[in-house]
């Protein structure tokens, strides 16, 4: 199998990974970035098929420019699936069915976050999407012009996503945020210390003129015959229905810690534990961005830069960033607090609501287990919850929120693979270098 060696290897080409690459490339270090997507940008700057129709995002342009100028090599379309002994990662390219190996001296994990989904009746209906999920699908070519969209869930993303959907021609009807206004107000007060973030917020608000933002409200159920037709919401006192074509619903984010966990990095409260200089508990392995705690793009950029500097031994320079990194972490913590889940959203599911979408395991079955002396392992073994191809990435955070069950094990491969990839003759690409492209725009 082809294997190539890099001074610094970075997993994830989101803001954290791009900033890390730019920092680590100084002084002629050989830096490679692996990302499963067709282009750099991560979740926030996911490349869209019609980007040229949107007004350019200055932060994105600036970061992308730095990344391209750094000379770091981007290997896109590569999903890291396993870690081999002695500093080697194994990747798989889904679209082309090829595997490769990448060896490193220093590793920076910048694997970002995914959405948290919580089950409610009807959430498996076609037409119900994740909030960030719908945004990503639109960037991937789904035409939502003229579609009536309800947005729900929790987190600062809901507004951003609603604004983007609106720009893409959808008609956003309302945004239902489960957090109560009182909680959000104290968060907003904290925001006053950060004019930049307020400006971001204001520009969002302008594209959302006329869209109702309802705090303290959440979905009761989604209805439709084979396709979403309407969603019922509540604020705990009254209920109302919204006729719509699509529902975009996500409950904030959960860090992608599977790869760090596989490498043996210590975790704390579901996040990768790092010191003030982004070092994990594993030597030569750094972590930056959302896996260390969801804190937004500014935190990701700063942490990425610090990790990049650390990886090439520029400790003093990285130390200079520490104070700002810590302050962004504080922002993340305030955000987590403001958008913490209310108990009602943990009780949305009915007995027959599916929790594990891969295996169609219902809430009632799991609740019965949870009332006994059982763990998530029992739920897996007895009910197949989390045994499907997503390997618990969707139901795992949900059952943790619902029942307090924690996923105990991460095993390679961390994503499903064709059998051939496990054989001694996988279709392996031998000319990796020629396939490396700095394809950003």
């Amino acid at each position, binding site marked *: 199998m082809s294997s190539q060696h890099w001074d610094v290897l970075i997993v994830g080409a989101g803001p954290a990974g791009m900033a890390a690459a730019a920092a680590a490339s100084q002084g002629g270090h050989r830096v490679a970035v692996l990302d499963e997507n067709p282009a750099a940008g991560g979740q926030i700057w996911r490349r869209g098929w019609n980007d040229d129709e949107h007004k350019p995002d200055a932060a994105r342009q600036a970061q992308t420019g730095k990344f391209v100028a750094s000379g770091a090599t981007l290997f896109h379309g590569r999903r890291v699936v396993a870690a081999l002994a002695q500093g080697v990662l194994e990747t798989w390219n889904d679209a082309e069915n090829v595997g490769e190996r990448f060896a490193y001296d220093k590793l920076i994990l910048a694997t970002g976050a995914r959405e948290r989904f919580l089950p409610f009746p009807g959430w498996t209906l076609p037409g119900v999407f994740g909030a960030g999920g719908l945004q990503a699908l639109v960037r991937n070519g789904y035409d939502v012009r003229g579609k009536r969209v309800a947005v729900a869930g929790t987190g600062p993303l809901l507004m951003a996503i609603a604004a983007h959907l609106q720009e893409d021609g959808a008609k956003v009807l309302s945004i239902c945020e489960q957090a109560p206004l009182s909680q959000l107000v104290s968060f907003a007060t904290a925001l006053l210390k950060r004019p930049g973030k307020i400006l971001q917020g204001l520009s969002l608000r302008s594209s959302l003129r006329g869209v109702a933002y309802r705090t303290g409200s959440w979905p009761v159920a989604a209805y439709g015959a084979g396709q979403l037709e309407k969603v019922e919401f509540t604020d705990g006192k009254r209920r109302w229905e919204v006729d719509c074509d699509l529902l975009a619903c996500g409950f904030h984010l959960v860090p992608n810690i599977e790869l760090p966990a596989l490498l043996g990095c210590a975790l704390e409260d579901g996040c990768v534990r790092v010191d003030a200089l982004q070092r994990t508990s594993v030597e030569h392995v750094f972590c930056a961005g959302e896996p260390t705690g969801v804190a937004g793009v500014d935190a990701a950029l700063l942490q990425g830069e610090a990790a990049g500097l650390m990886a090439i031994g520029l400790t003093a320079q990285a130390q200079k960033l520490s104070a700002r990194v810590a302050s962004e972490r504080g922002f993340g913590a305030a955000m987590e607090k403001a958008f913490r889940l209310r108990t009602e959203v943990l009780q949305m599911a009915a007995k027959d609501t599916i929790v594990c979408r891969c295996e169609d395991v219902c809430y009632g079955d799991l609740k019965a287990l949870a009332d006994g002396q059982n*763990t998530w392992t029992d739920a897996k*073994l007895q009910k197949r919850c989390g045994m499907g191809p997503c390997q618990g990435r969707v139901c795992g955070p949900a059952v943790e929120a619902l029942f307090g069950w924690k996923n105990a094990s991460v*095993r390679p491969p961390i994503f*499903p693979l064709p*059998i*051939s990839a496990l054989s001694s003759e996988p279709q392996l690409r031998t000319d990796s270098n020629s396939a490396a492209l700095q394809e950003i725009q």
Partner: protein
Amino acid sequence: MECARAGLRVGVVEPRVPGGAASAAGMGHVVVMDDSPAQLALSRYGRELWQKMRAALPDSVEYEQRGTLWVAADGEEMQEVYAKQATYTSIGVSSQVLDEKALAQAEPELRKGLAGGLLVPEDAVVYPPAAARYFLDEAIALGAKLIRGVRPVEAAKGIVRLQDGSALSAGSIVIATGVDTSLVPWITVQPRKGHLVITDRYPGFVHHQLVELGYLKSAHKLTADSVAFNVQPRQTGQLLIGSSRQYGDAEHDVDNKILKQMIDRACEYMPRIRDLSAIRVWTGFRAATPNKLPLIGPTPDPTVFLAMGFEGLGITNSPAAARLLADHLLQRESAIDRDPFLPAHVFRGESAHA
């Protein structure tokens, strides 16, 4: 369950997850195995008891009588097919010889040019963790008590001491701890590591429990690591792909070298398996005894009985072993000769005083 059914007062101590050790790692093939007369008798008895339980089993156990298809690659293995059939016939296990064409018809995804096979139609498959849980729940319904989350550290003279300092007393203690011999250190049970791969759902891709005939040759080499073609369709439409056997590796980590050999073997027999999506890979440990037979019955301590060391057949044999053990406890006659499984055969010299 057997003991509870016989009217005994039963307590089950499980430090971790019921059905969560080897039973969660195995394939769940219920198969009559002819590697020794004793094994043959026990596995035939086990299969018969599974068949009798069939109607009572909950859906979650996924009992399916798919039949084993022993695949012969060449003329030499075809000779074994006939020998095997003779052995099965001698104890009343029905089987059917398939020639090249019939094999291709029975399993179109097998590669062309295989010599034939032996179909054992009454062999079955179950989902082991659910089966273990069913046995336990049945026992609990009959009054058995589950003591969960504490590890026994000593079991002798009618007393089981738990890690938290407490103790349980019992007229009889049955040690059924799989590969873990910490309660009976005088017993030698070697962990024999196996790898398995499970695929996504492909209903109809494979119809029978497929095992290469070379399996016995490779499975029973006592020392060397080995792999064999072994593919099992599950009720879900998923395929379980095995199998490997390794000694001397007590780590749960996947061994890439042996995994590749195992997958290569599977692809050799079933080329299109290459394109299927593998959703998980894991390892488990079979409890191998020196004489290749499970240990079922009394020990020098009259209060301590064993039911362990089931190697790669513990699911098939579990109902038979439970029955034999209950027979020992209640001093009943048994349906088959239980002498070959007596722990006395493998006690080391010093054991009597331990």
